[in-house]
């Protein structure tokens, strides 16, 4: 069944740039070398399990997580470890990285085999499979999935929401995943439901993806526990808290987590990865990446091995145009711009966006004209103009009083500001200062 819930308050309409929406997912050729960062999740980095010079097989675990909030990493090609060294990470730091030279054999590690039927697996089995497969939230946050699926006993989960909103302009990887891997998506959803003992799931999809809605609804229409939620096309419809509000009409308390209101939200790619991990036993060694924007010759949705350099992936799409001026990992609203294309695709890379010189002109910041558009657009109902102003004047305590820390950094305020103020930038600064002071006080 398809439900059509009314949307959350605020948000913006940044426009439709889904130029790769009808491009089927194609397999990218495996590169000669892969660069696998030992940190592709929120939490402490992994320790390497292999040494320089060692031969590895495809899917072999090569980095083990330390502690609970961590996820292992796996070899994404078969071949030889040629180095373990610090390397550029798309999140702007240097991270210990395992570099493997591809032998072109794609020989699967012998331990990789299916885990049997979902019905036969216990909750602990499922959590273990998900953990060992190194699955993290593939929407970009990269929170380890097995941790998310282990809520404390006092936080019962009554609703699972699969996030197929994909509200970021340009990105289409989730869209294509839903259309082409609908069956695995539903399987993964059922696996999540079983893992947290919840009998109620929604698959939220924005109304601009009718093919995905139809395809998935076809599969779940006889299942009374899973419903498709057709969502209003609006940014940031795919933000976790906004999605929960739209689907369940509940608000996650300020500073809280989705489980505080009985919800777990999972990305579509994550669901498919879970299905593959259960059925085929394959760890998360590749993902769908949208390579798009006017700076790339041929926009595509590619199935890319984790650790492939962005430069290789772009080459696969016919290369970039001469006037490409900006490279972004992720979408245009929340993605990180990169100084080079020598960063590897990681588990959280949903897209690589290339923009040309005309699109990257930095506007000149004018004075605020108090139009209030940032306030109307803020999905959290903050006063972005006020917080940014306090930040400008280094009045961080006032910024905190105006709930700066509740900002989800969606960028609606900055997008919509006619005076072209860098509101989010100022708010981020305030958030950093407030957090730094809190850490100082705790010492």
């Amino acid at each position, binding site marked *: 069944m398809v439900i059509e819930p009314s949307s959350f*308050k605020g948000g913006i309409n940044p426009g439709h740039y889904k130029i790769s929406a009808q491009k089927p997912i194609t397999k990218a050729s495996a590169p000669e070398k892969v660069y696998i960062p030992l940190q592709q999740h929120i939490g402490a980095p992994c320790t390497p399990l292999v040494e320089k010079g060692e031969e590895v097989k495809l899917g072999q675990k090569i980095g083990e997580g330390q502690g609970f909030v961590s996820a292992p990493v796996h070899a994404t090609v078969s071949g030889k470890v040629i180095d373990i060294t610090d390397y550029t990470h798309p999140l702007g730091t240097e991270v210990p990285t395992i570099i493997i030279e591809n032998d072109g054999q794609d020989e699967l590690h012998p331990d990789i085999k299916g885990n049997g039927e979902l019905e036969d697996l216990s909750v602990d089995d499922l959590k273990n499979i998900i953990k060992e497969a190194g699955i993290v939230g593939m929407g970009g946050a990269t929170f380890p999935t097995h941790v998310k699926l282990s809520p404390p006993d006092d936080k019962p989960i009554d609703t699972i929401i699969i996030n197929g909103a994909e509200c970021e302009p340009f990105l289409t990887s989730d869209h294509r995943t839903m259309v082409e891997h609908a069956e695995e998506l539903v399987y993964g959803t059922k696996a999540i439901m079983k893992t947290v003992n919840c009998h109620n799931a929604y698959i939220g999809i924005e109304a601009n993806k009718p093919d995905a809605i139809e395809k998935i609804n076809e599969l779940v229409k006889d299942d009374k526990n899973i419903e498709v939620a057709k969502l209003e096309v609006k940014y940031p419809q795919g933000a976790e808290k906004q999605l929960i509000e739209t689907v369940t009409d509940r608000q996650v308390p*300020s500073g809280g987590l989705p489980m505080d209101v009985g919800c777990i939200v999972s990305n579509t790619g994550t669901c498919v990865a879970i299905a593959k991990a259960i059925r085929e036993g394959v760890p998360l060694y590749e993902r769908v990446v949208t390579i798009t924007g006017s700076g790339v010759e041929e926009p595509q949705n590619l199935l890319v091995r984790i650790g492939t350099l962005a430069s290789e992936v772009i080459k696969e799409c016919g290369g970039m145009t001469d006037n490409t*001026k*900006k490279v972004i990992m992720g979408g245009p*609203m929340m993605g990180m711009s990169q100084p080079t294309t020598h960063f590897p695709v990681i588990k959280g890379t949903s897209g690589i966006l290339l923009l040309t010189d005309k699109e990257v002109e930095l506007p000149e910041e*004018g004075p605020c004209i108090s139009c209030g558009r940032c306030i109307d657009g803020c999905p959290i109902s903050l*006063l972005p103009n006020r917080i940014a102003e306090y930040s400008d004047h280094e009045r961080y305590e006032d910024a905190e009083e105006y709930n700066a820390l509740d900002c989800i950094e969606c960028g609606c305020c900055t997008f919509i500001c006619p005076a072209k103020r860098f509101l989010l930038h100022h708010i981020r600064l305030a958030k950093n200062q407030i957090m730094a002071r809190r850490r100082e006080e705790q010492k």
Partner: protein
Amino acid sequence: MEDKFVVSPSPHLRTQESVNTIMRDVVIALVPPTIAGVIFFGWWGLALVIIGMISAMVTESIILRKSLAPKAIVGDWSAAVTGMLVALIFPPISPWWVVAIGSFVAITIGKLFFGGIGYNIFNPALVGRMILFVSWPVFLTTWSEPVGTHDAITGATPLDGAEATYTELFIGNVSGSLGETSVLAILIGGIYLLAKGHIDWRVPVGYLGAMALYTLIAGEDPIFHLLSGGAVFAAFFMATCMVTSPFTRSGKLIFGIGCGVLTALFRVNGAAPEGVTYAILIMNAVVPFINNYTRPKIYGEVSK
């Protein structure tokens, strides 16, 4: 290939809308009242609008940008809006220099003395009108009959006791300020701004609703009060000024209601002919308080 990319914080996408496009839309919205003014009061009205605009734009260009280059004069179009507003709220037989000085005062004292666009507390056009009203009251209370010329006979406005039907008031075929008499033309411009999202319905609805209610309770004809004088023009073009009205939604409603109540109060209980001007300027002064007390409840806020 050499990698030389721009690195900047997200978002990497911006709306096409800017202060310039908003102000240009306001200029467009002021065209219907201008046309109505020309139809009812003659070509001198158009001359006044142009004089008002030039005076405001040149003043701002010289003081702010120290240049008379065409681009500097146009600026962000906000001076053009102020100049138009000044001309449209002056009587249609005003001498050219009164409007020119009005615009000059609006830009200097009303806007630039406070720090320019975004920093001014009071509506610049109304500051211009108020200062000129206390300086040369005669010129601001000398009204001409419609379809007159520059030297037409003078007469009273409906608010001063002249007879007029609802239809005449709505169409605007009565004495009054250049752009304020035709409710029809003002509504066309106002609806354009509403459709473009540049003004919030809460301001004009609060303004006119409160005014109607107050005059009704006071035993006067609310429809007459809405249609006559500068109330509708003020509700759509003056009280909605982004810079000088609250930025929260509920604040906008409160602001509109405040303006409406004060306007009605001055008309019913006072003798001041400048009711609209004073009402909005007084409400402008309390905007910071309204903003502070109308903070929206944030997402996920737990009631304490």
